[in-house]
C-alpha cells in the first residue's frame, strides 16, 4: 500500500538524488515497451506497407513504360518495312505498266509501219501497172498513128 507523505519534511535541494531515479528509469523502459506496441509497430506497419505499395507501383509502371516503348519501336520498324514494301510494289507496278505501254506502242507502231509499207507497195504496184498500161496504150496509139500515117501515104 502506498503511504503518501504529502506533509513530509522539505529537504534535499536541487541535487537530491533518491529512489526517484531508478523508478523513473523503470517507468521509461515500460513506456518504451508500451509505445512500441501502441505506436511504433502499428504506425510502422502502415507506413512501410504503403511505401512498399508505392515502390511496387512505381516499378510496375516503369516495366509497363519500357514495354510500351519496346512495342512502339516494334511498331515503328513494322511501319517502316510496310512502307518500303508498298514503295517496292508501287515501283514494280509502274515498271510493269511502263513495259506494257512500251510493248503496246511498239506493236502498234509495227502494225502501222507494216500496213504503211503494204499500202506503199500496193500503190507502187498499181502505179507501175497503170504506167505499163499507159505506156502500152501509148505504144498502141503510136502504132496506130504510125500505121494510119503509113496507110495514108
Amino acid at each position, binding site marked *: 500500500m502506498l*503511504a503518501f507523505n504529502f506533509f513530509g519534511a522539505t529537504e534535499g535541494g*536541487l541535487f*537530491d538524488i533518491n*529512489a526517484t531515479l531508478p523508478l*523513473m528509469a523503470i517507468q*521509461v523502459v515500460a*513506456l518504451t515497451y508500451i509505445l512500441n506496441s501502441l505506436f511504433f509497430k502499428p504506425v510502422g506497419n*502502415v507506413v512501410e506497407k504503403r511505401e512498399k505499395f508505392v515502390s511496387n507501383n512505381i516499378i510496375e509502371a516503369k516495366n509497363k513504360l519500357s514495354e510500351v516503348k519496346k512495342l512502339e519501336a516494334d511498331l515503328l520498324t513494322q511501319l517502316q518495312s510496310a512502307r518500303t514494301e508498298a514503295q517496292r510494289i508501287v515501283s514494280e507496278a509502274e515498271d510493269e505498266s511502263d513495259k506494257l505501254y512500251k510493248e503496246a506502242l511498239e506493236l502498234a507502231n509495227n502494225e502501222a509501219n507494216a500496213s504503211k509499207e503494204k499500202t506503199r507497195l500496193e500503190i507502187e504496184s498499181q502505179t507501175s501497172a497503170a504506167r505499163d498500161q499507159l505506156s502500152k496504150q501509148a505504144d498502141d496509139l503510136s502504132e496506130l498513128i504510125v500505121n494510119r500515117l503509113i496507110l495514108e501515104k
Partner: protein
Amino acid sequence: MFFNSLLTNFAALEVGQHLYWQIGNIRLHGQVFLTSWILLGALLVFISLGTKKMENDPKGLQNLLEFLWDYIRDLARTQIGEKVYRDWMPFIGTLFLFVFVSNWGGALIPWRLIKLPSGELGAPTADINTTIALALLVSLSYFYAGLSNKGWRYFEYYVHPTPIMLPFKILEDFTKPLSLSFRLFGNILADELVVGVLVFLVPLILPIPVMFLGLFTSAIQALIFATLAAYYIGEAVEEHH
C-alpha cells in the same frame, strides 16, 4: 513573519523543494511522478486515438502520428545506420517523446494553479533524477548495442584509431551520461527559473517572449537528447575498417 509567508506564496519561486512520498524506506519526489503520469497519460491517449483506426489513406491524427514516426525514423536511421536502426527506433522515439512531452508540458500547462503542500509541479525533466535516469538508460543501451552487435570486438572501439585514445574513451563513458543529464536538467530548470523570476518581477507581457524562447529550447533539448542517444548507439555499433 506574515509578510514573509505572503511573499513566498506570491513569488512561488521554490527551488529545490520537493513533494516527498515515503514508501517504506525509500523516498520519492512525488511532483515528478504526478506530472509525468499526467503528461504520459495525455500522450498515450493521444496516440491511442490516432492509431485506433489506421487507414491506408491517413487522415487527421493518423497523419500527424505518421509524420512523427517518419521524423523519428529519419533521426534514428541517420545516426544509427541502416543495419540496426530498427531495433533502437522505439527507444530513441520514446526518449524523444518523453523529453519533448515533459518539457512542453512543463512549459505550457499552468501547474502553479495546483497548490501542493510542498514543492511545485513542473516539467519532470527539471528534476535531476529524471535526467540521470534517462542518461543512464542511454549509457546502458549503447553498451548493450555494442556488445550484442559486435561481441567482445566492441572494445576495439576504445583503441580506435590508436591505443592512445584509451583513457579518453574510458573518460567519455562517464562524461556522456553526465553531459546528457546536466544539459537537459540545466536547460529546463533554467528556463523555469527565468520565467518564474520574470513573472515575479514583471507579471505582464514581458515574460511572454521568454516563454516562447523556453518552448523553443524545450523542443531543441528533446531533439538534442534523442539525437545524441542515437549517435552514441550508432557509434557503438559502427564497424571499424
